[in-house]
């Protein structure tokens, strides 16, 4: 851990940590895989937008419209820089889920001559690690177009089995949609080979970065991917705002998903010419204050430094994995060593269902996620009904892990296992 990185100091920026939880306990928030808490700086940025600059962006001739448009576009710039992308490649959506659907519907709306059009026999490749958000839109696109959905399997340690990559990603493949980091197991997916295989056959790579972008530095140019999505609310930002990034040469060839105001170059009663990206994909008045709040969140993370964030979480995960290994009757599901894994630890307990584990932990102020984590097919593959999941972020420290471990032992006592 870097000496300057202090979770205790960071927690002072988050009003929610002054809340008293069940049993009179302090909040030990370990549900960051679901959503993160928000620092005062993000709340202030949203409030300031509404109090000082509120107007519909890109419309109106008045001062507020100008200021709102500048604040909104500056926010886009902050996000673009965060990903090492160009400004016109960053599209604001309401969520990562909407971003993926925007892609799936755009591809589905393509003219038959488009490189994005799918026909019977074409392939979409996903993996068994996917969150429903990066599975169902592709599964349904496959159903609508007659394309075939195929997927990478996982091995016993929860790592992706890449041995058949060249078979799965064949000349029929149009789309490879893959998670960067499993929301359930923490597995970080090695992208180099997948991207190489995809590009060899002319397929595009869509990266679900919901669990990665908030936690370590992402460079879309280095990754050489084609599309990326993530949400603001998992990265200290507000709800109702997400990102779709795509290569501008692709975005400007693609059909929009939502049509309406703002997204047109010109319109008549019978026909419309689409505006270029990003406007093409931002129909309607966008979530402006949320975009500004999202940028404030990214600025907060940048101030900490994404490498410092990653190092902190790596150290904390190592500490937690060591502690979990010492527990009897508790099994970590997913990679048990800290190589290529993020700060998400799923576990099962002998004789206690995850919901009951979560309920006991709640009594000690520990907030975790329980159940199937929107990854039901993965649960079926692992042969379990669900897990209890602790996921860490910048404000967590070893004391939080200690409370978690103590509470897990309390659950064993309570249920007499």
């Amino acid at each position: 851990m870097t000496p300057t990185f202090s979770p205790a100091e960071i927690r002072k920026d988050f009003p929610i940590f002054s809340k008293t939880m069940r049993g009179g306990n302090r909040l030990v928030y370990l549900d960051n895989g679901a959503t993160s808490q928000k620092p005062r700086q993000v709340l202030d940025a949203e409030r300031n937008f509404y109090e000082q600059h509120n107007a519909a962006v890109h419309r109106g001739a008045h001062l507020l419209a100008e200021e709102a448009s500048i604040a909104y576009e500056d926010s886009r710039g902050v996000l673009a820089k965060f990903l090492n992308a160009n400004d016109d490649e960053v599209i604001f959506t309401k969520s990562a889920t909407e971003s993926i659907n925007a892609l799936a519907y755009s591809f589905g709306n393509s003219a038959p001559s488009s490189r994005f059009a799918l026909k019977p026999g074409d392939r979409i490749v996903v993996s068994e690690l996917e969150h429903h958000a990066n599975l169902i839109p592709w599964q349904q696109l496959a159903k609508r177009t007659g394309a075939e959905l195929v997927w990478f399997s996982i091995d016993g340690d929860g790592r992706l089995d890449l041995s058949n990559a060249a078979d799965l990603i064949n000349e029929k493949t149009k789309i490879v949609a893959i998670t960067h980091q499993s929301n359930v197991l923490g597995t970080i997916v090695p992208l180099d080979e997948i991207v190489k295989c995809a590009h060899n056959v002319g397929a595009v790579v869509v990266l679900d970065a919901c669990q990665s972008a908030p936690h370590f530095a992402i460079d879309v140019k280095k990754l050489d991917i084609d599309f990326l999505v993530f949400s603001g609310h998992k990265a200290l930002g507000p709800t109702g705002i997400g990102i779709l990034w795509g290569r501008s040469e692709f975005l400007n060839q693609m059909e929009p998903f939502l049509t309406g105001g703002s997204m047109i170059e010109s319109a008549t009663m019978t026909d419309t010419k689409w505006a270029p990206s990003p406007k093409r994909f931002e129909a309607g008045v966008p979530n402006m204050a949320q975009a500004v709040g999202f940028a404030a969140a990214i600025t907060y993370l940048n101030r900490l430094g994404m490498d410092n964030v990653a190092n902190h979480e790596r150290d904390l995960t190592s500490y937690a994995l060591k502690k979990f290994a010492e527990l009897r009757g508790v099994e970590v599901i997913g990679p048990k060593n800290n190589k290529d894994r993020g700060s998400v630890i799923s576990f099962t307990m002998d004789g206690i269902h995850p919901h009951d584990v979560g309920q006991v932990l709640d009594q000690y102020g520990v907030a975790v996620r329980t159940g199937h984590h929107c990854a039901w097919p993965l649960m079926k593959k692992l042969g379990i009904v669900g897990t209890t999941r602790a996921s860490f972020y910048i404000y967590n420290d070893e004391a939080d892990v200690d409370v978690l471990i103590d509470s897990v032992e309390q659950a064993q006592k309570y249920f007499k296992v």
Partner: protein
Amino acid sequence: MELDSLYQEVILDHYRHPLHKKLSADFSAQVHHVNPSCGDEITLNVMIKNGLVENVSWEGVGCSISQASTSIAADLMIGKSLKQALTTVDSFSQLMSSKGTEAGDEEVLEDGVALAGVSKFPARIKCALLGWMAFKDAAIQSKV
């Protein structure tokens, strides 16, 4: 501790030793119910003849609350008239929506009153209702 109002001993007993948890070969209706948000699932068989609940049996996976509650519901329904059984389900549903203000009528709900504390934990109410709603569904299907 607040937890004790949720996990009464009688609930933990039903969880560890569930009643009627073996699907019967014969049934007048079979239903499969899930809680999509948490993945709990049960299959439940009923045998209802001439307005009488002759048998209820089930199989399933889930948390202690869902499993104990299904065990309690199954045991309670067997031998009741269909009309009585459905009134009992309504009585339990009402208890679950009471936000901790009702203790439940032990004459009607028997072991089911042990689940009264669940109504103070909004996230767990659907766990407690799973088996009861499955029974209601199966009972309605049996009638047609």
